[in-house]
């Protein structure tokens, strides 16, 4: 097999490995993240009533209980009903998204109904839910534009508010916002027994006082007058309270979807995921026929513990070796810097092999850049300049002593260390360093760089040596920009397997046989003139 084919296979292999491992880790991180954000709840209805006549005589004479529906953000894990002596049927209504438990009986008696739901909330999915577009049938439109006793569109108070609302150029959204602001801000809160009318739209708008239901009804009515189909929504806010009560908000149909508004809590266009609707287009969870007496409904909500696996995820096991974020936070910086170095080398390889910029050594630009990460770069450059000058001066003087190479290099190293130490001390004395962070220069690399600069200057001329210095600086600057990028460092710490992709890129670059950028300039004179 030729080297070309083999390297293509290896590249493909590394890319697959990299994507696969990154994907697996992404998935498992996402799952555990979601598991933390998710919450499980138990919602219980307990309904007691007394039927004095048969509930099956006419279609309306049935007990209808609104049920939560399975949605992207609210998963019904389990539901159980108990209703001794009652016939049951579950009905689903596609148009409104409602689901009801319909109970009938032929005997007048006392009945007790219990319904229990285990619900799991995924707050993260609520956004997707919001993106669901639908079209409103003519029937539904008529229904949600209707004027009746509950929503008196023709009421004088309603018309008065509408007259105050912005006119002319205003868009639907602006009018809707104005109506929402009016209902949410201009109406005072009231309790249910407040003069008995705080639930009624005419009373609410006349007295500027409303219950949650009154506010919602007022907003629905106003929306309908403004030409926007609107409906009430009854549901529960899933939180652990004693004696929870259904909450009422509204939905307005515009922009091809039902958009929620809660004038009581002030949520507009988006409801938090912990609001779970059980009935749309109505204000009660349980609808009882006239024949039912002494209807008593009680609800309870209980937060359930998360899955065991989540609680045990921190326990010690060998697979954790591959999770670098588990390490003490102090080590993260060093670890991510190390993980970034291959990317620095990638930059260097790119500059050398694709652009054609020459540098001193292969890794010195990336290592130089890495050393600047901990230092404030201003002081870093000052120290680097001092060290370079001192090192070069020392090297120049040493030349005359005719020393063997290793001792000579060691003297330069010692000089550099002394320089760095006293530079740091001086900066500290002048109180220039902000945090007292020392400059961690790669001393050995600097020593070798100084030696190479000296030899290159001597052998190939100072111009060529300076050219290499400029090349090294440019590449080091790009490496610095990359290494300084915290987000990339964190990502690499989380997904170190992404370096399989880096290796693939190195192989691609290693097999790159195209022209270097500088060759386009270098050989420009060799282009044959086009044959006419």
């Amino acid at each position, binding site marked *: 097999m030729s*080297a070309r084919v083999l390297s293509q296979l290896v590249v493909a292999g590394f890319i697959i490995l990299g994507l696969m491992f990154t994907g697996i880790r992404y998935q498992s991180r996402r799952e555990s993240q979601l598991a933390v954000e998710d919450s499980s709840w138990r919602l219980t209805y307990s309904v007691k009533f007394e039927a004095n006549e048969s509930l099956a005589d006419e279609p309306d004479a049935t007990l209808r209980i609104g049920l939560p529906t399975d949605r992207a953000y609210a998963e019904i894990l389990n539901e159980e009903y108990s209703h001794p002596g009652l016939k049951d049927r579950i009905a689903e209504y596609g148009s409104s998204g409602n689901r009801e438990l319909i109970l009938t009986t032929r005997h007048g008696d006392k009945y007790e109904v219990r319904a229990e739901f285990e619900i799991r909330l995924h707050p993260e999915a609520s956004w997707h839910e919001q993106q669901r577009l639908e079209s409103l049938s003519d029937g539904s439109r008529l229904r949600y534009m209707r004027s009746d006793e509950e929503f008196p569109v023709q009421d004088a108070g309603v018309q008065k508010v509408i007259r105050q609302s912005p006119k002319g150029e205003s868009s639907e959204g602006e009018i809707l916002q104005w109506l929402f602001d009016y209902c949410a801000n201009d109406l005072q809160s009231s309790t249910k027994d407040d003069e008995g009318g705080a639930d009624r739209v005419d009373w609410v708008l006349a007295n500027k006082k409303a219950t949650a239901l009154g506010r919602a009804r007022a907003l629905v009515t106003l929306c309908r007058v403004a030409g926007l189909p609107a409906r009430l929504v009854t549901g529960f806010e899933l939180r652990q309270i004693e004696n929870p009560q259904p909450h009422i908000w509204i939905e307005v149909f515009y922009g091809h979807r039902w958009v929620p508004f809660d004038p009581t809590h002030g949520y507009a266009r988006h409801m938090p995921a912990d609001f779970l609707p059980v009935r749309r287009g109505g204000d009660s969870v349980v609808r009882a026929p006239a024949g039912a007496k002494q209807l008593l409904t009680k609800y309870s909500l209980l937060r359930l513990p998360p899955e065991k696996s989540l609680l045990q995820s921190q326990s010690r096991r060998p697979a954790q070796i591959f999770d670098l974020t588990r390490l003490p936070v102090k080590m993260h910086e060093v670890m991510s810097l190390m993980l970034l170095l291959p990317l620095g080398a990638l930059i260097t390889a790119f500059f050398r*092999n694709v652009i*054609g910029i020459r540098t001193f050594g292969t890794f010195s630009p990336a290592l130089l850049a890495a050393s600047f990460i901990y230092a404030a770069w201003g002081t870093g450059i000052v120290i680097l300049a001092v060290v370079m000058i001192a090192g070069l001066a020392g090297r120049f003087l040493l030349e005359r002593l*005719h020393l*063997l*190479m*290793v001792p000579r290099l060691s003297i330069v190293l010692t000089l550099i260390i002394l320089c760095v130490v006293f530079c740091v001390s001086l900066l500290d004395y002048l109180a220039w360093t902000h945090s007292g962070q020392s400059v961690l220069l790669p001393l050995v690399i600097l020593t070798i760089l100084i030696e190479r600069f000296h*030899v290159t200057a001597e*052998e*190939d*001329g100072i111009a*060529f040596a300076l050219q290499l210095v400029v090349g090294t600086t440019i590449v080091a600057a790009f490496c610095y920009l990359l290494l300084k990028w915290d987000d990339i460092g964190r990502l690499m710490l989380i997904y170190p397997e992404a370096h399989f992709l880096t290796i693939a890129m190195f192989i691609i670059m*290693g*097999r*790159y*046989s*195209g*022209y*270097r950028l500088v*060759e*386009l*300039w*270098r*050989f*420009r*004179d*060799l*282009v*044959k*003139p086009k044959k006419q």
Partner: protein
Amino acid sequence: MENQFKRFWAWPEELSQSGILGINHRNVGVIFEHNPRHLYPRVDNKLLTKQICQAHDIMVPETYCVLREHSDCRRFLQMIGDRNELVVKPASGAAGRGIIVIARREGNTFFTSGNREILWSDLRYHLSTILSGLYSLGGQLDQVIVERRIVSHPLLMSIATEGTPDVRVIVYRGVPVMAMIRLPTSRSGGRANLHQGAVAAAVDLTTGITFGGVCENRAITHHPDTKQPIAGIEIPSWRELLDAAMHTSDALEMGYVGVDFVIDINMGPVVLEANARPGLAIQLAHRQGILPRLRFVDSLSEEMRTGQQRWELIPKLADLSTSSIV
């Protein structure tokens, strides 16, 4: 044509249409394919190159002595005896680094061909830096070769000021495909390295007559120091030189090699060293790319590109060039 001199830039397609070999292509497509890694010491170590050449009766400069240990430095004067002219070079040096050519000697004071004075203590220091590996690839310990100084043919000396002009022949799979003569300038410090400012002229493979010319990546016609025209020079003993180039490549068993010659006034063409990664400036000297020639050699059967058959290929290869000379 006018457009050609104004441009600062060539598109990659234009370069590949002109058959230009880029450095990445050279490394990946040519060197890795034809130069087995384990044979590199044969060219990287000049001592080994010399031994191989001598074993195949290829002319090389006579070796006076080899220094292997630091203790040898002390015995250097004793080893060279009363020789006045000699060359000191690192066995593993690259690009002419660390080479000192001694042209004259007054007792223990030496003078280079450029008449720079070198005291014995300086020379001894230089020898020890070579041994400690300053000039070697990768910095390993090195050896010092002390050899005969080649007196270049007067015809070639007349164009160059200082240093020794050398002839490089690129041999591809046994066939000489391109040749150039490199003339040191004052800028290049007497060294024949193009990236240091030496001048190069292309050599026609059939006739051994120079044409074209390049300095610092730009086309030139006259030597910048002597103002002599660099085209139209006939390289002495050209046929012998080509023959030696083919034999060297055969002996080294390398598929893509640059063989460097100097032409001695008495001995004729002498192999100085071979290079497994010859530079690409030879294309600039020819004002033409090397790729069509490499492809031509690739298209040949093994019998056609070995032995004496090769001589028949040379006019064809040269023809590939004349068709496109501007």
